[in-house]
C-alpha cells in the first residue's frame, strides 16, 4: 500500500486580497516546513510569478462565492489541511498537523461558548439538543483537516459545495411539514452562510451519520482569530495559525 500523500490547500478567489494573503500563507507555511506540499486554488487571472513559484500544485477555479468548498473537494492530496487564505503560519508544529486525525475522518476547530464574543450568531432553535439545551454551530470553517482517500469524505466535500450552491441560489432550505421554508427553526440570516450547509450535512444528513467528525486538540492554536482575547487563554500551546478575518479589510483594501 502506498503512503497517503499529504498537503496544504489554500483557496484564493474573488479579490486580490485573498490572492496576496494566500501567497503569504503558503510562504509562511514553507518558512516552518520547507518540505510542505501546497496547492493554490485560484482564478487564472490572479496568478503571477510569485504564486507559480511557491505553489506545488495549482488548480483554477471560478469566482463563485464558495470557491473555497469547490477547491476543498478537488484537493490533489489524500490527507489535506485546508486553511483560509487570510491566515498566517507562525509555528513549526504546522508540520505535525497530518498526525492529528485522532481516529477521525475530518477535523475542524470549534466554536465553544467562551469564544462566542467573536461570532455574530451561533445558536438557533433547529439545533436544540435532545435534552432541551440550546444548540448551534459547533464547527468553525477556517481550517479543516480531512482524508480525501476516504470516499465518504470526498463525497461529503462535493455534497457540501452542491448544497451550498443551492442554498445561496435560494433553491434549498429546510422545510416545515406544510412544505414551506422553516424559518422559525433555521433563521433566514443563515441563508448566505456555508456554516449552515456544513451544520446540516454533519447533523441532519443520514448519509453522513457514520462520518467521524472531530475537533482538533487545543484547537484555538490552529485557527487563532486575531481578535481573540489573549487573557482568556483559549489556547494551551503557542499559536500555529493566526486568522486575520476582517470583512472591512477584504472589501476595502484590495478589490
Amino acid at each position, binding site marked *: 500500500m502506498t503512503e497517503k500523500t499529504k498537503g496544504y490547500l489554500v483557496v484564493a478567489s474573488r479579490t486580490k486580497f485573498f490572492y*496576496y494573503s494566500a501567497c*503569504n500563507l503558503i*510562504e509562511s507555511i514553507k518558512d516552518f516546513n520547507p518540505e510542505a506540499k501546497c496547492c493554490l486554488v485560484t482564478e487564472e487571472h490572479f496568478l503571477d*510569478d510569485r504564486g507559480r513559484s511557491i505553489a506545488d500544485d495549482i488548480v483554477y477555479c471560478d469566482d463563485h462565492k464558495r470557491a473555497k468548498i469547490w477547491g476543498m473537494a478537488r484537493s490533489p492530496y489524500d490527507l489535506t489541511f485546508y486553511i483560509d487564505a487570510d491566515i498566517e503560519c507562525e509555528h513549526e508544529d504546522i508540520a505535525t498537523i497530518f498526525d492529528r486525525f485522532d481516529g477521525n475522518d475530518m477535523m475542524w476547530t470549534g466554536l465553544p461558548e467562551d469564544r462566542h464574543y467573536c461570532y455574530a450568531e451561533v445558536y438557533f432553535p433547529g439545533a436544540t439538543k435532545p435534552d432541551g439545551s440550546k444548540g448551534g454551530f459547533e464547527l468553525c470553517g477556517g481550517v479543516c483537516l480531512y482524508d480525501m482517500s476516504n470516499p465518504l469524505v470526498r463525497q461529503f466535500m462535493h455534497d457540501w459545495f452542491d448544497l451550498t450552491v443551492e442554498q445561496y441560489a435560494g433553491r434549498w432550505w429546510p422545510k416545515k411539514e406544510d412544505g414551506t421554508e422553516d424559518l422559525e427553526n433555521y433563521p433566514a440570516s443563515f441563508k448566505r452562510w456555508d456554516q449552515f450547509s456544513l451544520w446540516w450535512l454533519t447533523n441532519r444528513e443520514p448519509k453522513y451519520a457514520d462520518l467521524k467528525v472531530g475537533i482538533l486538540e487545543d484547537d484555538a492554536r490552529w485557527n487563532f482569530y486575531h481578535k481573540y*482575547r489573549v487573557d482568556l487563554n483559549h489556547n494551551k500551546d503557542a499559536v500555529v495559525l493566526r486568522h*486575520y478575518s476582517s470583512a472591512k*479589510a477584504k472589501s476595502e*483594501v484590495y478589490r
Partner: protein
Amino acid sequence: MNYEIQDNAYWEDGIDDRSVVKCILMHNMPEGGRRKEVCTFSRLLPDRSLCPKYKEVVAKVGVEKIDVNTTERRKRKDMEKKTANIKREQAKKAEMLEKLFHMKLQAFEIPEIANSEDKKLRTKLRRSQNEVEMNAYAALIIGKELGVFDNDGED
C-alpha cells in the same frame, strides 16, 4: 408611602463617611405599573438639619447592609474597569496586528520585494512584529535588489 426602597442602596463613591447614600425607589403608579427612580440623599440638608429621606433609606436598608452593598459594588466596578481595560488593550492590539498584516501584504506587492529571491530577508519581513521592523526589512530587500549595497566600502 407610594414607593418601595430597593435593598441595594450603597454609599456614594469617593465618600467614606456614610454622608451620602444612593438608592433606587420603585414608585407604584396610580395607573398601574412601576417607575424606577435613582436617588442620591445627603445626610444633612442645606440648613444642617437631618434629611428625612436619608434617614428613611438608612433605617429601611440598614447601615450594615449598605456597607456590604458598597464593598461589593466597588469590587464589581473595579473588576469591570479592569476587564474593560483589558478588552480595550486587546482591541488595540488586534487592530495593530491586522494593520501590520495588511501592510506586509502590500509590501509583497512591491516588485523588488515580490521578485526577491532572498528567502531569509523575505521571512524576516513576514515575521516582523511592528511597522518599524517591517519597514526596515522592506527597505533592506529593496536596497539589495536595486544594488544599493553593492559598492559598500569602495567609495
